[in-house]
Structures are given as C-alpha cells and as structure tokens.
C-alpha cells in the first residue's frame, strides 16, 4: 500500500534546484522587461483611444446624426460628456453674463450656453450662465436677438447641413444638429428635459429674412409681482422693478405701470420695467421718529462726498415728504455752506428699523459741498466737509456729525481769503436700494 503523503513528499523533493537568489534575479529581470512592455502597450492603447476619440469628435461634428433624446420639428438633440481636453467645454470661470443689456446671475442649477454654430465656441466673454426656469427665455433671446443668430440663420438659408447648436448643461453638453432649418429647435433645461413648446424658437424666420423676430410684451398691470414675473418669463421677458408707488386702490405688491406697454413688440432689451404698489400712503414721517447717520461714500473731492442715512425709528411705516434741507455747520453752529433743499421722491416709504441695525439704510441724502462759482482759481477748495450737517426734515431738525477729516474752510479763512463764492451742498433724497 502506497502512502499518498510519501508520494507527494517525494514529488515535492524531485527535480533540480536553481536556488532562491538566482531565481529572484531572473524573475526581477523578467519583471522589468514586462513592465516596460506593458507601459509601451498602455501608451499605444492610450494613443489609440485618443486618436479614436478625436476621430469620433470630428466625425460627430461633421455628422449630425446622433442618438435621439429630444426632438421638435424633426431636429435631434443628443447628450455627451464634455471632453476634458476639447475646446467644446464651457468656460468654467463665467459667473455673470451680459446678454441683451442685462446682467444675469448664475444659479447652481443654471444652464450654460457656451457655443453654437457648427461647434464653434462663443468667446468666454459672451458665454452665459442661465438662471433657473428662465433659461429658455434667455436662450431664445440669444438666438433671436444677437447678430450671431443672423449668421446661424444665414447658414440655414444657405442650406449648410452642419449647423450645430451646442448647449452645455451641467457637466455635459447637448448638441442639437439643425437638420431642418424650417423647423423649431427644442430647448432643454438643466436636466436635459425638453421645455414646453412656448420656449421653442423658430429659426426659419431668421433663416428666411435675416430679420430678428420680435416678441410681444405681455400685459402685467394689475397682476401681483409674482404672477407678473411668471407671465413675463413665459413670454421670454425679465422683470425689472424701477420704482414703488403709493396707491390707494392697489394693494401692496401689485404692478401699477409697465414699460414697454402691453402688446408692444420688442427684440432688444428683453426687460419689462414695472412700478409696484406699496399700498395706501402711510402717515408722514416726523422728526421725532427719525434718526440720521453720516456715512462717507468714499468719493473724491467735489460732489457725492457723503451720504446721510435716514432711518425710521418709530413703530410704523411713514412716508418721507418734502421739505428736506441740509446745511453744513461748524462747531459753533455757524453755517459754512448754504442751505439746500432736496427733492424727495414721491413715495419714499420708511420701514421701522432698529437703531444701529446693519440694514437700516432706508433713505440716502447724497451730498457734497463746493463753491458755486468756483471763483478764486485752482487754489480754492473744490469741496468742504463741515463738522456737522444740520438736516431739516419732518417738521424738525436732526444733526449729523461728520466723521471724516474736517476741512471746514469758511470763506476768507485759512489762507483762502482770495476765494470767492459760496459753498453749497447738493443732493437728493431717494429710497435706499
């Protein structure tokens, strides 16, 4: 009877022995060779992949047929990863963009349009980050209201088959080959979903006429601000509040006026200016419920040297009414400037604010002081900042100390005797932004 253990032991001890050291030298040498071969193979494979990738990109650029993810009017859109080294990537540093005269701010889920027209990129200065739901509006704006659209339209008119719109969405791009210039292009949102049909832009108009199609301004008067904004977005416009106004008939937040008017055709700004009601007029502000602070505006000599910030320290809203006037005085309460009455906007409504609250700016009186006639030559001061500003407002007076370096130089003192003229303040009272 044979023992399997003995057999295995015998087998294990059979054959010649090379020795561990020698074997290691041979193996290490072989390993080095294999590493070199593998690196070479990897390099070749990488090169092959890169070449194939470039070929694919080129082929894609010149061959619009692609995976169909969304269509409108026979056009096809496709998504693909942004090639890291491709010039097709959006500029990463874009934070705001000037489009049709308005500055747009980005949002985390914004859509970035970085290129179009056969894959050629818009310069980074023109690249745009689009804001939320309104991206379709902006896309339409860019397509319909810029000279580049004309070029795109011209390409369509010339029946060039390779017109390609490229939308960069988050980390991917959406390319929309224009296979039929007489059809609409589907716009997509940040998730690649096709937006509603009202956001489609018909390129055929620009293609046929090289004219910029116009959008009709919707009627917003009487709507609440939120409703008006939604309506404006649907019509591819952006709202801009240019003022507030007291209204005895319209509650707070209702649009009172708009510009351009409803029904107008617009193709340039993309904005509708609105004035919003602040509701019925509150009681006039009285001096006992007001406080004023001095704030240096950091301006140069001349006008706009300082701002007086008026706060409502009462318990209810009040309306600031004329007259409001200011005069610079010195420590002896002697006026060193002439008194100036400021105009007051019709509805500067001051909301109660705590004293010293960081956002207590509710009205600004921007002022400076300079000799009215400028007489006395170049040696005469062009401005004066008195120790105190005395503000007449709300049936009383408020005194504001000048916290900057005082350069109170009443005429005829401090070697300025040769200077003539009158120092005056100037400015206006406006609602704080």
């Amino acid at each position: 009877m044979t023992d399997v253990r003995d057999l295995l032991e015998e087998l294990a001890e059979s054959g010649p022995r090379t020795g561990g050291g020698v074997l290691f030298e041979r193996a290490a040498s072989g390993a080095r060779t294999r590493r070199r071969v593998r690196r070479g193979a990897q390099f070749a494979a990488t090169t092959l992949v890169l070449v194939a990738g470039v070929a694919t990109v080129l082929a894609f650029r010149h061959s619009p047929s692609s995976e169909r993810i969304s269509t409108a009017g026979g056009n096809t859109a496709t998504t693909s990863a942004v090639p890291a080294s491709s010039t097709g990537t959006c500029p990463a540093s874009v934070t705001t963009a000037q489009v049709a005269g308005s500055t747009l701010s980005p949002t985390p889920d914004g859509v970035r349009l970085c290129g179009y027209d056969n894959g050629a990129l818009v310069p980074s200065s023109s690249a745009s980050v689009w804001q939320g739901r309104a991206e379709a509006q902006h896309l339409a704006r860019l397509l319909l209201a810029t000279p580049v659209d004309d070029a795109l339209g011209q390409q369509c008119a010339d029946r060039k088959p390779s017109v390609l719109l490229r939308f960069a969405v988050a980390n991917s791009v959406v390319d929309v080959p224009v296979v039929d210039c007489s059809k609409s292009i589907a716009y997509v949102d940040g998730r690649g979903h096709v937006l509603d049909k009202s956001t489609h832009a018909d390129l055929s108009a620009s293609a046929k006429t090289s004219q910029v199609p116009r959008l009709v301004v919707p009627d917003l008067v009487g709507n609440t601000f939120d409703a008006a904004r939604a309506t404006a977005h649907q019509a591819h416009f952006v709202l801009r509040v240019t003022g507030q106004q007291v209204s005895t008939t319209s509650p707070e937040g209702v649009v009172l006026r708009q510009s351009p008017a409803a029904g107008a055709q617009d193709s340039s700004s993309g904005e509708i200016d609105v004035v919003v009601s602040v509701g019925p007029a509150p009681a006039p502000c009285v001096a006992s419920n007001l406080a004023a602070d001095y704030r240096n505006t950091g301006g140069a000599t001349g006008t706009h040297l300082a701002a007086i910030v008026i706060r409502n320290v009462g318990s209810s809203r009040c309306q600031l009414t004329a007259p409001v006037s200011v005069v610079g005085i010195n420590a002896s309460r002697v006026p060193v400037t002439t008194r100036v009455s400021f105009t007051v906007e019709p509805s500067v409504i001051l909301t109660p604010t705590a004293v010293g609250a960081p956002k207590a700016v509710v009205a600004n009186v921007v002022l400076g002081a300079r000799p009215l006639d400028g007489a006395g030559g170049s040696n005469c001061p062009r401005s004066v900042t008195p120790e105190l500003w005395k503000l007449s407002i709300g049936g009383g007076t408020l005194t504001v100390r000048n916290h900057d370096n005082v350069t109170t130089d009443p005429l005829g003192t401090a070697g300025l005797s040769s200077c003539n003229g009158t120092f005056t303040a100037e400015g206006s009272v406006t609602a704080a932004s």
Partner: protein
Amino acid sequence: MAHLRATDDEALFVALYPALRRFAAAIRPSGIDADDLVQEALTRTLARRSLSSIEEPLAYLRTAIVRIAGNHARGRRRADARVVRVGPPDVESADAYPSDLADLMRVQPRARAVLFLTVVEERSFADAAAVVGCSEAAARQLSSRALRSLRQELGVEVRNGDPA
C-alpha cells in the same frame, strides 16, 4: 527606495523559496520544471507590485503557481488532443519518473495542490481552497476525486486522517 524594496523582496523570496519550490514541484504539470513555475509566478508578481507589499506573499505566490500550472496543463491537454488527431511526434518523450509518481502526475495540478496542502502540510481545506481559488466544498471534492483515482490505480492510503 526602489533598491531597498528590491533588497527586501529578494530576502523575502529567498526565505520563501524552499516552500514555494516544494509546492511547485508537487503540483507541476508533466514536462514543466518546478523552478520555472516559481520563477514565472515571481516574475508576474514583481511586474505589478513588490513582494514586500503583499500581505501574505507565500499564499499569493502559491496561488500564482497554481494558476500557471493549470494553464500549462490545459495547454498540454489541447496539445495531446492535437497529437491524437495528427498522430504522435517522431520523437517520443519519456517520463523520467517512476510509475507511482507518474500516476500522481496525471492528477490535475489543482487537485494535487489541495492534496499537498491538506495531506503534507496538514492545512485546512479552507486554506487550500483559498490558495487554489475555489470554495471549500470544491476543494474537498477535488481531493476526494483525486484520492479515489489514486486508490484505483495505486492502492494508496492516506495518513494523518482522511481528507476526503
């Protein structure tokens, strides 16, 4: 740094070599030298990583040896099949081993690896399965079949317990 690592690897391998060599000799396919198996396993390992970076280099290299031996065995079987189809070569290769060892050599390398680890080194089937790269049950089955075959041909017996 690389030099130090190579030195460490060499010292480690020299220490492991006797065990690796015995294992390779026990499971090697017919016509393959044990040292060639060991060297090939080490070469493949060093081409990708240093020996000292491996947690259990002995088990790692043994697994590599089993795989290389298995590949050789499969290649040999294909070659034998071709020989059957086209006829034997002009020069016949004679096995230098006695008949008992020749019969043992006919057991496939993975089964011999399990037998060697469980019978000679008295390791558990779980350890053997880890080296061979199969489940414990599969290792037991490999061992059982190999012993059954050897019993029929050689009338072998097993000491140190019945691995089957």
